[in-house]
Structures are given as structure tokens and as C-alpha cells.
């Protein structure tokens, strides 16, 4: 949690119906993690740290918040979820498999020749992938256009953009932040994955961007910040951001932990491209099963 701003007090999720809902999301998150492991194992390496850190957020979105039709990924009424972090592809494929948009069996083709699931996510390859995101800092600019377009069509769907803390380094992200506020894009929700990791090291040591929430607020956004690995915080925060009345774009900063859910990866030296030994994949799967 940032020291610069108070934590948003998560709305209470109290009664048993809500507890049931949270439980359903938690189970989806664990399946998303398992789906990500299946893919990373094919490569023997990869962006598994990021996939594990964002799994809970993706579960809230794909198992609860997003309006979508699994068998019709371009349905006009869908909420658009734009992943600007192309290298998080395996996490998105894991969520799309959980949501039934792509078959789970296809995950073992991740990043192999001829696959629909390339290592960097591209809209032209995969159903349910809205944009091609490998060049970082594009997502929020595109999300603005999608949000404007939806308004123009009187379509009440929401646009989500999942972006990384590294993408906050790019000037284009802040240009887009200003554009979104200027145009009052209240159908846009940006989710910033603060995992404090970039290619060369810790985000805080690459280019300090804190206080992130206060920056978005100063740009005119409604902003919340929660523990991104606690669905009991993520769910009410996203629900609130969808329903607040302000004529402004909304931002959720999620503090996440690379490798979340697999203890030896959580404890390993934090790297953009984590190394996993061949015998560790099974151990990782076993841990997820134990937690279930």
C-alpha cells in the first residue's frame, strides 16, 4: 500500500451470498494460475511471475465483472478489456480459457510455431484479445478511442485497460490520461498492475512514479488503490468504480506480488523474466491444488 495516500476502505462484502461470490472468484483465480503454469511450462520459462500476480484481478474481471459472451468474442454488447502489456499474454489466455472463450487444451500451444497464442498478445491471432500490446504505452490511448466510440454509439459497455507500472514511464500514458479526463470518459476503467517490477529491476529504482493514485487524481480521474491479490478488496473496488456518478475516467491501482500463489516463486529473486527449473512446475501445480 502506498505511504502517500490512504488506502481506499473496501466496501464490506458481508452476507453469505457475497461470500459465495468471492469464493467462486477465488477458485477461478486458482484455475487461471494453473492455466498460466501449463503455458509457461511449454516454454520452460517466461512471464509466469506476472501471470501469477495478476490472476486475482483477471478472475474478478473474467469470472464476475465483465459482460461477455464466450462463444461470441466480438459481440457488440461486450465490455472491452484491453491488455496493453503484450507480454502478460499467458495471463490473458489463462483467463480467456477460464471464461470459455478459448479451449483449455489449446494452452499447451502457447508461443509455439503456428499457435493462435503468441508470446506477445496480438488481436489478429487470438479470439478475445482486443489489441496488440507488445509496444508498451499504447493501451490507454486506444482505450480512449474505444470509450469515445461506445458513447457515440450509445453503447453502455465499459472499457477496461490493464496496464503495467512500467507503462507509467511512457509519456503516451499521461497524454492519454489527460485526454480521458478532458473528455469525461466515465465508461473507462484503467487498472494499473503495481508489481514494482520492470525489465531492468524494481520499478521504484527505474523511474519513481509514486504517488501513482495522486497523479491520476490530479489528472482528473476517480482513483482507488487496493491489494490486487485480495479479491475481497478488488471486487468491491471495481464495482464501485463502475457505479460512481462522477463524469470522469476511473483508475484502480492494484498492488500485486510477482509469483503470487507459489511460495518459492514469491520468494525468488524478482526478475522480469523468471527462471523456473524443470522439476518445479509440478511443485507449483501441487501447491495450487493444496490451496484449493
Amino acid at each position, binding site marked *: 500500500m502506498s505511504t502517500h495516500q490512504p488506502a481506499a476502505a473496501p466496501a464490506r462484502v458481508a452476507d453469505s451470498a457475497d461470500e459465495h461470490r468471492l469464493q467462486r472468484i477465488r477458485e477461478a483465480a486458482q484455475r487461471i494460475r494453473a492455466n498460466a503454469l501449463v503455458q509457461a511450462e511449454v516454454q520452460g520459462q517466461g512471464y509466469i511471475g506476472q501471470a501469477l500476480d495478476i490472476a486475482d484481478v483477471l478472475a474478478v474481471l473474467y469470472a464476475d465483472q465483465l459482460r461477455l459472451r464466450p462463444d461470441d468474442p466480438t459481440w457488440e454488447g461486450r465490455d472491452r478489456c484491453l491488455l496493453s502489456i503484450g507480454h502478460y499474454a499467458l495471463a490473458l489466455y489463462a483467463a480467456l480459457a477460464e471464461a470459455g472463450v478459448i479451449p483449455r487444451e489449446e494452452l499447451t500451444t502457447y508461443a509455439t510455431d503456428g499457435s493462435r497464442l503468441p508470446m506477445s498478445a496480438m488481436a489478429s491471432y487470438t479470439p478475445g484479445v482486443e489489441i*496488440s500490446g507488445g509496444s508498451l504505452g499504447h493501451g490507454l490511448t486506444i482505450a480512449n478511442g474505444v470509450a469515445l466510440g461506445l458513447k457515440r454509439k450509445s453503447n453502455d459497455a465499459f472499457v477496461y485497460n490493464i496496464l503495467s507500472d512500467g507503462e507509467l514511464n511512457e509519456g503516451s500514458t499521461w497524454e492519454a490520461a489527460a485526454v480521458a479526463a478532458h473528455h469525461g470518459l466515465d465508461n473507462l476503467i484503467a487498472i494499473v498492475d503495481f508489481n514494482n517490477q520492470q525489465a531492468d529491476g524494481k520499478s521504484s529504482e527505474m523511474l519513481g512514479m509514486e504517488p501513482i493514485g495522486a497523479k491520476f487524481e490530479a489528472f482528473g480521474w476517480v482513483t482507488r488503490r487496493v491489494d490486487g491479490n485480495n479479491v475481497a478488496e478488488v471486487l468491491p473496488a471495481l464495482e464501485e468504480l463502475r457505479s460512481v456518478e462522477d463524469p470522469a475516467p476511473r483508475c484502480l491501482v492494484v498492488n500485486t506480488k510477482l509469483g503470487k500463489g507459489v511460495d518459492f516463486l514469491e520468494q525468488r529473486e524478482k526478475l522480469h523474466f523468471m527462471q523456473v527449473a524443470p522439476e518445479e512446475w509440478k511443485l507449483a501445480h501441487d501447491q495450487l491444488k493444496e490451496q484449493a
Partner: protein
Amino acid sequence: MSTVNQSPKRLTSDAMSASLARADQRVTAAPLGHALVALAEQDERVLGLSADLAKYTDLHILRDALPERFYQIGMAEQALLGAAAGLAMEGFIPFASTYSVFATRRAYDFLCLDIAEANLNVNMVCALPGLTTGYGPSHQATEDIAILRGMPNLTIVDPADAVDIEQAVPQLAAHDGPTYMRVLRGKVPRVLDEYDYTFELGKAKLIRGGGEVLLISTGLMTERALEAAAALEEAGVDTAVLHVPTLKPLDEETIRRELGRDRLVLTCENHTIIGGLFDAIAHMLVRDGTVRRITPVGLPDEFLDAGALPTLADRYGVSTDKLVERVLGLRRSQDA
């Protein structure tokens, strides 16, 4: 990590930190980084900057050896090139690193106006040129030379191997004006030291003579051209290789001289066949009033597929084997 996946399972995309060398090759680790450290130790004006890609462009060698000579700018390529311009204005000699796609596509305006128009001594050293990653169009700089050749004042270098990179670095710093070098990173093959060769900025060099075929190559395609020439020799085809590491300014005199002999000519480049070596030579010939058939070997005018590098190199005709096939095919059609 080797990009050539020899395991029996399906070929997978290469890793971010993959290098291009085969397991049986002589290599040098991070030649750019080590050459920069050697240079920085001699010349205190030399600095390194990166946009969150030091580790993936070999600048981490400089960062770790001489931390006070390195700036981490963060993943902000426009700010990277703007800062490099400012440092050069203050008399420093910055080497700025990112991937080729981001320097040329994202930060073009900063490179053009802040660096090239001012004719500053800023050296852009950029990794993943052409087809050296299986990530797809976001990372494959297939048209960086085409983008940059139109930029006045800019010197453009596409090195073949570690020897070229090591020898180029001090010459880029000594050159009074902006330069852009395509970087090969990680374990980089050493090839050219087997020949009587030295890198000279602005010069093309005949690496290997041959009377029947002339391969005019640049960048990593020179290594493949040399391998192809050796294979063609076994097939009884005498093949010369002219290496053109500096693409701008082009060593027209040497190229003209080699084209003066009657041989089957192919250009070989790790770049789209639009706007690179082939076009530069065609441009020169038309200006000269010379009509001459030259076959371009390079990447197609397409967004490339994602996938494993060996598969893609074959698919797009830029592997050594495909180059040999191409030459033999052209000779057959000539005979016919």
C-alpha cells in the same frame, strides 16, 4: 539461452534474452557492453543511457562496471533520446540503448530534430534488428533502416558480429555526428576475425573473392552469406562476399567496383527489401545510368509472423540454406 531449440518438442518463440549464436560457434559475450567499458575508461565524456533495457542491450555491463557513467531513464524512449541530445549539447558522448523498434518508431521525432538536425554526437545502440526475435511485429525492427535512411546527418551501421561491434564502438564515438547501430546482444558470434578484416566506418569490405556469384551483404546476413559461399564452393560455385556494415553513407566506390565484374549478384539484408541495402544500391545504379539485375534477399513487405527464429528464417528465405537454394535456383534459370 539458445534460440536454436534442438529439443524434439515443438519449436517455441525465443526468449527475451536469447542470443543468436549456435552452440558450436565461437562467441563473445556482450561485445557492445565490454567495448563501451573500455572506451569509457579512456574517455570520460562517454556515457551510457538506457530506457529500461540495459540488461537486454548489453549496457548492463557498463552500468555494473562504471555505475557513475550510466543513467537509467526508465521506459521512456522519447525522454531517452531527448536527454541524450542534452548531454551531447553539454559536450558528453552518450550511447543510448533501447530496442530498434522503439528508437525508430516511438522516438523518431526526438532523434530527427533534437539529435540529427543539431548534428550532435549521440550514438543510438539498438537491439533486436530485423528478424532477431520471434515476438512478432511489436519487437521486430524490419523497417528501421528504411525509416532512418531518409534522415540527414545520420550514420547507420549494421554490424555482422562481435568483431564489427567491438571495432565500431570507438569509431562511432570519434565520429562527429549522430550514429545508429543495430546491436547483436548476448553471446554474439565471432566470424570476421577469421578473415583479413577490420571495421572502418563508412567502408565496405570484400571479405571473400569469387568469380561467379557476388553476395553483397550487411549485418548478420554477412555471416550467412559467408556460410552460403562456403557451401556453394563445395557445389562448385565460386562466390564472393562484400560486407557493407555502414549503410549510410554508402561506400559507393567499392560497391561500384565490385559490380563492375560480370557476376550473378544478390543483396542480403536482415531487413525488409524496401528501403535498405538493396534500395540504396539500386538508387546508386540508376543514378549512374547502369542497368543491372540484382536479386534482393531480405524480409518480405509484410508484418512477420510470431514464432521460432529458425522456422521464420526459413519461411522468409533468409536462412543460410535458403540463400544457397536461391543462388542455385538463379543459376539454373540463367542456364536455361
